[in-house]
């Protein structure tokens, strides 16, 4: 089992290759580029590599993408309107289905927003359990990225390994919440019920197994020359561009931005845990992959610490029978596995929200795609789309 080094060490071993970005028109364009007739290539909405119903209108000149226009809206379900018809407990189950890879992380900002408006104190045990479940869900999400990114680059093996690990963690979460993907477990004021017997042992076993096996899995891809050549220096998103497009989460951290809401603006009890914000400086596909895989280890560290310090006590604060947020407005942001998830809740004192604006991470991340895809080669398009790990339900809501 070879140990995987830092991104710069790993990159140093890769052989040289042709530059991924085609020289811009002008400087080398006149003699270096052979112009052909422009053609519009439609990718999607049904395409297995876009994990979902993402559509891309690519204008290509020979092998070079000169323009890429993402078309979204194929999964628009009208969330922001639907939640106005449902009361706060029902919304929990609805927002859980918004980003289907990180159900419980979506429920969290809603619960936090309602608690902030109603000034409910959440008992520490519930806060610790929330952290544990959120981080386990983050591991599930990142494993799914590992599975899909490998498959998109032509390696199907990571899919089978990642799904094996997912099943182990999903079994623990299912024993606790009753759902494999959509949990509906966080309520305003706490969590639905206390964890069952054997949760601590099961969670620890599942998480430690992931940590044990992760280096091997990483080596499957990082130790592979083909993988390196397809990802290193491909699809570069510079730090300034990432800032200006509002990119957040692991995609931004892959561009050298050390921004993590868990560290910068701690919610729940994240300030009590010792974990690092992983980031990589280059902003290419390899660095984004590296950051996402490294975060699995950090999440596992948080789970271990939280289980160690799990206090006894009640799991629900003092909540009235009818949840009726007082008049007011509040903005809460949390670190979703894919970036910053914000919820702006406006209440007029009813059982239902007056308005709930949802700021989803994938939507902002995907807006940088047309910038990154410009002047790249067609064969790199799938690698770039895969490394911008987006979930269509999260984009369209």
């Amino acid at each position, binding site marked *: 089992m070879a140990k995987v080094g830092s991104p710069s060490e790993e990159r140093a071993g890769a052989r040289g290759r042709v530059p991924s970005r085609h020289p811009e028109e002008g400087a080398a364009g006149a003699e270096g580029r052979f112009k052909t007739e422009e053609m519009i290539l439609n990718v999607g909405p049904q395409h297995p590599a876009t994990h979902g119903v993402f559509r891309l209108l690519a204008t290509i000149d020979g092998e070079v993408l000169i323009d890429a226009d993402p078309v979204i809206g194929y999964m*628009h379900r*009208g969330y922001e*309107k639907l939640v106005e018809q449902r009361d706060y407990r029902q919304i929990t189950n609805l927002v859980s289905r918004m980003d289907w890879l990180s159900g419980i992380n979506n429920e969290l900002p809603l619960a936090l927003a309602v608690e902030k408006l109603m000034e409910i104190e959440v008992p520490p045990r519930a806060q610790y359990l929330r952290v544990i479940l959120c981080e386990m869900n983050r591991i599930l999400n990142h494993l799914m990225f590992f599975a899909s990114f490998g498959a998109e680059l032509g390696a199907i093996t990571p899919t089978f390994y990642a799904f094996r690990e997912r099943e182990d963690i999903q079994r623990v979460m299912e024993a606790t919440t009753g759902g494999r993907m959509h949990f509906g477990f966080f309520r305003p004021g706490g969590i639905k019920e206390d964890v069952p017997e054997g949760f601590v042992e099961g969670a620890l076993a599942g998480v430690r197994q992931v940590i044990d096996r992760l280096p091997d899995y990483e080596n499957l891809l990082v130790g592979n020359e083909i993988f390196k050549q397809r990802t290193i220096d491909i699809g570069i998103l510079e730090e300034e561009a990432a800032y200006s497009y509002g990119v957040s989460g692991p995609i931004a951290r892959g561009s050298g931005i050390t921004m993590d809401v868990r560290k910068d603006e701690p919610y729940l009890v994240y300030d009590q845990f010792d974990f690092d914000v992983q980031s990589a400086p280059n902003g290419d596909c390899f660095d984004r992959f590296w950051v996402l895989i490294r975060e699995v280890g950090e999440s596992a560290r948080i789970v271990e610490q939280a289980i160690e310090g799990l206090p006894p006590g009640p799991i629900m604060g003092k909540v009235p029978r009818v949840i009726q947020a007082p008049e007011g407005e509040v903005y809460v942001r949390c670190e979703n596995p894919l970036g910053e998830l914000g919820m702006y809740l406006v209440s007029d004192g009813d059982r239902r929200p007056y308005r709930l604006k949802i700021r989803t991470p994938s939507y902002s991340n995907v807006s940088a795609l047309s910038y990154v895809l410009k002047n790249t080669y067609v064969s790199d398009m799938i690698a770039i789309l895969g490394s911008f790990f987006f979930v269509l*339900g999260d984009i369209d809501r």
Partner: protein
Amino acid sequence: MAVIEKVKLPGPASWLLNWSRKYSLWMMQFGLACCGIEMGAAIASKFDIIRFGVIPFPASPRQADLLVVAGTVTDKMAAPIKRVYDQMPEPKYVISMGSCANCGGPYWDSYAVTKGVDQIIPVDVYVPGCPPRPEALLQGVIRLQQKISGENPSEKWLGHTTPIPVIPEPGLAGGV
């Protein structure tokens, strides 16, 4: 093909045809939403849908026999789904996976969601759940195989709808 259309098949021949068809279903995965992940789990290591003779990853819908619509069908997505279905050659089958594809599910009052994929294309088997467990999809596949084994192949090739046969209780896979 032409012979099958004109001649009434003798019993053993149609049994053989059905038997071979039901264990080599090429599955076009239409993973739309959450159910797509569970469909992936059904294909992956633990549940392994290939042992039922269902082969995922066809290169295009033109090579597929079975369309699994897994997830929320929005009005914007309805036209591409119809198009993929039309590209598939007869005989073809459709499994609607999950509450959203069945009837709209939790988005029953949404302005953007099609309430059931059966408004666009004919559906053979409905798999309930939100999302259904991978085992539920496997059970749906078994039900579809039971349906295929009771079919009259010549009618199916002509595109006629076959009356749904009485499905025996689930026992051995396929119930042959």
